[in-house]
């Protein structure tokens, strides 16, 4: 009995640990959260309808899953405008340093949690070979920055309401939802590790390079946001799904978009 207990610490094997806390709760919550999002996003990307409301009944309010809206009529119906664009933000999140940690733990169980054993017998290669594509994260970042501009323009459109044959400034719950969404996405994107490297992290001696003070300032500010990268990752993920859901509901007539201003 004693000897068996001693070996337990030395032996590997999935889930083997002497930890007595709820170590499985974190990876389980991550798996449910990420899994739920992927299922919802896939469903909505294939749904291909109820993704916007248009004047004259309302301002132009477009779901972030379908923005920018690219309509190619000759494509088969399941290739929705969302499928044409979602690979870019999807790739950004897939290669994000935070999400990598999250899904390596929750789905690959590599490791499931700290000091908890892994399945034996797999040839672990980390982020070499098959996973070298993770190094392209910075390119997805460049695309994500373009998406931020596009989604900000959507918020502007969501403020332009029809009025007596003309146009007027207005704000509805839908406008606020899109505005909150782009704000959280901006905080997520501006806390990115690759951006932190790009704006100044790659400099060792700030007093030796051109615009060193500026770069140091930028690096410090991105670092501040970066400390909470996980928080921005989850809140922006939730919000982008909620924004799509809200547009779906008002576009299908289930909710009425309440005008505030």
């Amino acid at each position, binding site marked *: 009995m*004693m*000897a068996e*207990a*001693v070996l337990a*610490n*030395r032996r*590997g094997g999935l889930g083997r*640990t*002497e*930890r*007595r806390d709820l170590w499985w709760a974190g990876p389980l919550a991550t798996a449910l959260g990420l899994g739920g999002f992927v299922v919802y996003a896939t469903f909505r990307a294939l749904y291909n309808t109820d993704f916007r409301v248009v004047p004259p009944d309302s301002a132009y309010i477009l779901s972030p899953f379908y923005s920018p809206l690219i309509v190619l009529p000759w494509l088969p119906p399941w290739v929705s405008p969302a499928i044409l664009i979602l690979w870019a933000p999807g790739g950004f999140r897939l290669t994000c*340093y935070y999400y*990598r*940690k999250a899904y*390596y*733990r929750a789905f690959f169980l*590599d*490791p499931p949690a*700290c*000091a908890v*054993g*892994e399945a034996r017998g797999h040839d*672990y*290669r*980390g*982020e*070499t070979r098959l*996973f*070298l594509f993770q*190094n*392209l994260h*910075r390119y997805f970042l460049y695309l994500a920055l373009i998406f931020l501009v596009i989604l900000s323009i959507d918020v502007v459109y969501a403020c332009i309401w029809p009025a007596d044959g003309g146009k007027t400034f207005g704000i509805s719950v839908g406008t606020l939802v899109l505005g909150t969404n782009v704000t959280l996405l901006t905080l997520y994107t501006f806390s990115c*590790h*690759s951006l*932190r*490297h790009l704006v100044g*992290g*790659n*400099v*060792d*001696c*700030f*007093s*030796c*390079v051109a615009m060193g003070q500026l770069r*140091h300032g930028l690096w410090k500010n991105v670092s501040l946001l*970066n*400390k909470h990268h996980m928080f921005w990752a989850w809140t922006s993920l939730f919000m982008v799904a909620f924004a799509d859901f809200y547009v779906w509901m008002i576009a299908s007539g289930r909710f009425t978009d309440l005008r505030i201003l």
Partner: protein
Amino acid sequence: MAETMTLEIHRGDTAGGELVSYTVPSTPGMVVLDAVHFVQAHHAPDLAVRWNCKAGRCGSCGAEVNGKPRLMCMDRVDKYPAGEPITIRPMKTFPVIKDLVSDVSWNFEVNKKIPAFKPRNDRPPRFSQEEADRVQEFRKCIECFLCQNVCHVLRDHQRKEEFGGPRFFVRVAALEMHPLDDGNRTGLLKQDLGIGFCNITKCCTEVCPESIHITDNAIIPLKERVVDEFYDPIKKLFRILMPQSRPEAGD
């Protein structure tokens, strides 16, 4: 009557071992190392345990308490549920010498692979506190090797040949990001220290008693530097077209 608690301590060596139970009186403010010392003084004078400062400074007393890597001298016993035994084992990733003492000499071999500080000669040796802040975090390391112990690349996958481990990424970061260092260790990171094996799952950060943000501030920035040099296709193209645009080490 003083309250007591039960410790289950690993007793044994490379040939094998077992958990042995000891009863210890608990006193206010007691840490796990105090309890182990009580066992040594009253029950088992031959119990091997490594320690020096009892203040979380020397990094000697790393062990696994209830399955979690910890410094025994900084681990209060009153945070563990009363009435349940506390299990103490040596660090799993390194060969055990005796009882709670493991052989961490592999780490010192890895350390030898890292070229030391190389001062740049092109400017006066002066830099601001702001520039020093970043590397100062890494200088807090007390070489307890708890991060090496918990890292699954070493702990579960035994990649000691190909992988340097988080402690040494911290050391390389301290050198690479130093404003006055002129060395370039990016190739070393990719090859001999195998930074690609790290999948940034952050267990090293979770256990570091010095709260060094190992993954966010050392490993990920170093990974980005490796991408700059080896995996960024546009940077590669630039280097081919304009060989003189290659950044100076230290910039």
